[in-house]
């Protein structure tokens, strides 16, 4: 809980640091803040407690999810570097501050015990993301993306709020416990209010929008592509982790009693998400856009665990989020380095061709990206393999055989587009010169690779914590 308070304060401190002449202190300061938050977070281990008038619950699940979000944020800050080139139009202090605020929002979404808190968390996170999407002010794509994100995001927020109101109308409570006991009683006597069903659906749709599941994914490719890569990385990791933490919590606690009602629709959406994400990704010419569709497809795998709703779903979601975040940060990190140094049609080149021959010019970056792609594709000895493995075994426990078959088939399609970049790096001749990157940047990327491989070889070490 201290982690939430401290992050809010650190965000404000960051804004003040912006008044300093030298901007060099910002990056280390933000890193330090996040590390402090991580330490404070780990101090909550085995401390069961409710805070803020029972609106927030801190337990080990909170610590785990918050830990993943904080580590991901740390890694992303670790690869953030090029805010400062264009002195006039960039405001790194504000970016870092907003980043910290959005992490606060993510933690609120993870720990909420009351639908009001969920809504506040979602908004804190979303508004921050709208702003960050548009930070590349001179770039028309960035502006377009921000506006699109904002318009559609507001729409989804409206639905979410609508759903909260209707659930309140049906149950008379905002609290997870209160809703759960209503649902339990009502479904026992077969007298569930239709209002609850509609409210539940709207609530779910609002959450599905945030995690970019089909058919509410339309914003994802455009926004991911338009946003500055560093914030795309943030969106596809932190937002997704927090979104699924919240989604699973609400589905498995408040609405567990009407599982039969929502499971089927959600299963259909999971299939749709897997199909659209994977198949469209296969057609993209831009690596960045492929990553956007790939993030949709990963939402599909995670939805599988939600649909399964067995006790092991939670640890499966945790493990998957962690492995996915690590690999995604690495992929976007390498993409940043590559597209900044190689231009195409007047802007950073994010096509597959930009990676041609990277293994010759920058073997380390190529290796990092290879491991990341292998992990995303779910190849053994990487974390991604075990992530998929745990999700699939949760689905097996819930007897979701047909869903599982589709998921496995789709992960085969995944290999096609993830390996395209590996082929480009290792088999195509090099174009252009080597890319020079800073030591801190390299260190962060190597760290993600090492963690991915370690989790791939010693999955039980982390799995036992979850």
């Amino acid at each position, binding site marked *: 809980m201290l982690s939430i308070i401290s992050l809010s304060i650190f965000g404000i401190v960051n804004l003040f640091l912006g008044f300093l002449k030298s901007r060099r202190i910002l990056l280390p300061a933000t890193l330090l803040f996040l590390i402090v938050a991580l330490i404070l977070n780990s101090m909550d281990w085995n401390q069961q407690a409710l805070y803020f008038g029972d609106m927030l619950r801190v337990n080990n699940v909170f610590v785990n999810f918050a830990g993943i979000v904080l580590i991901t944020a740390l890694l992303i800050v670790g690869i953030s570097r090029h805010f400062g080139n264009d002195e006039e139009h960039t405001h790194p202090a504000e970016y870092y501050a907003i980043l910290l605020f959005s992490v606060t929002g993510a933690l609120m979404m993870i720990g909420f015990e009351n639908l009001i808190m969920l809504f506040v968390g979602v908004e804190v996170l979303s508004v921050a993301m709208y702003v960050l999407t548009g930070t590349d002010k001179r770039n028309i794509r960035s502006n377009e993306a921000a506006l699109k994100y904002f318009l559609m995001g507001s729409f989804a927020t409206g639905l979410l709020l609508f759903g909260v109101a209707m659930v309140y109308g049906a149950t008379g409570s905002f609290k997870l416990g209160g809703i759960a006991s209503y649902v339990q009683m009502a479904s026992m006597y077969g007298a569930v209010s239709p209002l609850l069903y509609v409210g539940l659906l709207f609530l779910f749709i609002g959450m599905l929008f945030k995690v970019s599941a089909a*058919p509410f994914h339309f914003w994802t490719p455009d926004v991911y592509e338009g946003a500055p890569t560093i914030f795309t990385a943030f969106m596809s990791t932190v937002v997704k982790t927090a979104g699924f933490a919240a989604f699973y919590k609400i589905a498995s606690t408040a609405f567990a009693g009407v599982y039969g009602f929502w499971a089927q629709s959600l299963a259909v959406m999971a299939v749709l998400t897997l199909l659209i994400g994977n198949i469209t990704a296969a057609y993209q010419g831009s690596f960045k856009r492929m990553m956007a569709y790939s993030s949709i497809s990963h939402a599909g795998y995670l939805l599988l665990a939600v649909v399964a709703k067995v006790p092991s779903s939670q640890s499966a979601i945790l493990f998957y989020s962690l492995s996915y975040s690590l690999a995604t940060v690495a992929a976007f990190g390498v993409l940043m380095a590559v597209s900044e140094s190689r231009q195409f049609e007047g802007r950073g080149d994010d096509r597959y061709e930009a990676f041609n021959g990277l293994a010759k010019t920058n073997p380390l970056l190529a290796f990092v990206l290879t491991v990341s792609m292998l992990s995303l594709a779910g190849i053994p000895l990487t974390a991604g393999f075990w992530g998929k493995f745990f999700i699939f075994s949760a689905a097996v426990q819930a007897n979701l055989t047909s869903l599982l078959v589709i998921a496995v088939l789709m992960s085969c399609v995944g290999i096609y587009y993830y390996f395209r970049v590996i082929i480009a790096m290792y088999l195509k001749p090099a174009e252009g010169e080597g890319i020079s990157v800073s030591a801190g940047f390299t260190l962060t990327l190597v760290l993600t690779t090492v963690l991915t491989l370690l989790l791939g070889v010693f999955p*039980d070490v982390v799995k036992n914590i979850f």
Partner: protein
Amino acid sequence: MNLAILIPLLPFLGFLINGLGFRRIPKAAVGLIGTGAVLGSFAIVLSLFSGFTGTAQVVPVYDWFTVGDFNVSFGFQIDQLSLLMMLIITGIGSLIHLYSIGYMHHDEGFGKFFAFLNLFVFFMLLLVMGSNYLVMFIGWEGVGLCSYLLIGFWNKNPEYGYAARKAFVMNRIGDLGFLIGIFLIVARFGSLEFASVFPAAAQLQTGDAGLFWITFCLFIGAMGKSAQIPLYTWLPDAMAGPTPVSALIHAATMVTAGIYMIVRSNVLYTLAPETLHIIGWVALATALLAASIGLFQNDIKKVLAYSTVSQLGYMFMGLGMGAYTSGFFHVMTHAFFKALLFLGAGSVIHAMSDEQDIRYMGGLRKKLPITFTTFLLGTIAISGIPPFAGFFSKDEILAHVYEHSPLMWGLAVFGSMMTAFYMFRLLFLTFFGEFRGTHEQEHHLHESPLTMTLPLMVLAVLSVIGGFFNVPEILGGTAKLEQFLDPIYQYARQANPEAFAGVHLDHSTEFMLMGVSVAGAVISIIAAWVIYISRKSVPAPDEQVSGLQQVIYRKYYIDELYDAVFVKPIQALSRFFYSVVDKGGIDRFGVEGVGRFVKGLANEFRLLQTGATGFYVLMMVTGIAVILVYSLRSLIFG
């Protein structure tokens, strides 16, 4: 942390350092790191050994993964058997590393060589230290990989590449058997841990059908790794690798993995007498076949290679009789003298400027005194002359064979006579008589440096005294090794006490058996002396060999047979599948068809992404409407 973890870790670190930095690290440091790593492991093994209390211990490293109730842990088993194997691997391993510093000195791949060698030691240690069949299998596959890499170490020569490939493929066939055996064990016992499989197996009846298949499949694995009929032809070809590799991997350690595995699984085998029976006959056939081929080979390393195959046959013969300790004892003594012989051969090849054909050697004993003396000791040891190491171990096996079947004993003694003959033939042709090489080679002749001769001397001492570790009671010994290894047969004894009743031969028979085998060896040596020293005959050039000798010299045309029966038909079949089934059918309609379908679909999906926000919202609203109607259909339509 337990010290045991460091044992495999040190060679692995050595591999990482030399493997990642072999272009930058100077040669002296490479050799020091590589040898030091293995020597460090050896020191730890020694300390573990001296502090060993006699109770087996499992050192858990970490829980690997859990699937349902099936848990696989990564752990090390420290007991009598694994300790002895570790001593052999790290002890002989360090000597051979040291030797390689001198032997590989001029090679440009010096660093790479040491990296691979360290990696091999790492995997070999995993193989013998693993506390379950899966860790053993990792080691098993790992040593196969290193063997492949090192056989093809001089990969500029395509012949060597083929040899490496052959070794790999043959081992894969065996590995498949091993793997199926592992699956059967999981299916039967629900675990792979030695600590839970063996006690459970001890409850079973002798002759259990499931156990037969388990043990048989495991033995197929052993056939591949330990070069038994029909999977032995890779080992002679494996001599393409640098000589230290032949000594370490293809004589002293890796090829004995199959024997280790069977001794480790002694409970299973004791309860499957049919498998033991099969092993016994396969082993005898291998021993005889390989020994007879060895009679007429002219390549110094090929002779030793066939001799290795044949000696492995003797070890398996011991196992087939249920005399696990005897088989394992021969593993130990063989490791000493065969490593010595290979290293000696390496020293000769080194001195002869890479000449390997014994027809062009001769008279080397004056130029290479240390190599000669040590080689001589090794030759006596392998021929089974008392009191050298080979005598004790081979004789023990022969005694067990006699108890089992005098016919097999007779054949086995015949095999050991051939051994003595071809080994002394090799010795006489190489070190005695006149020099038959070119003038230039003669000019270059020199004794090897100390890094190479020191290991020779140490191994020579071990070859002489190695037999005393297990002197049988009849010769006034106490059978130390037998007593030491006794605890690992605990479950087997419990399950089938009769199998461990011991040799029931009376002393006079035993003395008679020893007398016959020693006399046979001496006769062979005299015959070799007469032919190659007194008559000074030298094997004829390849084209003049004919008749039966030609058949044997060409290794009974087994390679050609395999080629005609397996390789050619499979190639034809694979061409058929490639051009007709794959290209015409699967590719056209399956793979590419699916690809086209996905691409077409993707194109449709892609077009949905118009970029217009209004359209997106429309789609979302449509989606919401569909979901609402679908989910609430019972409410709406009653």
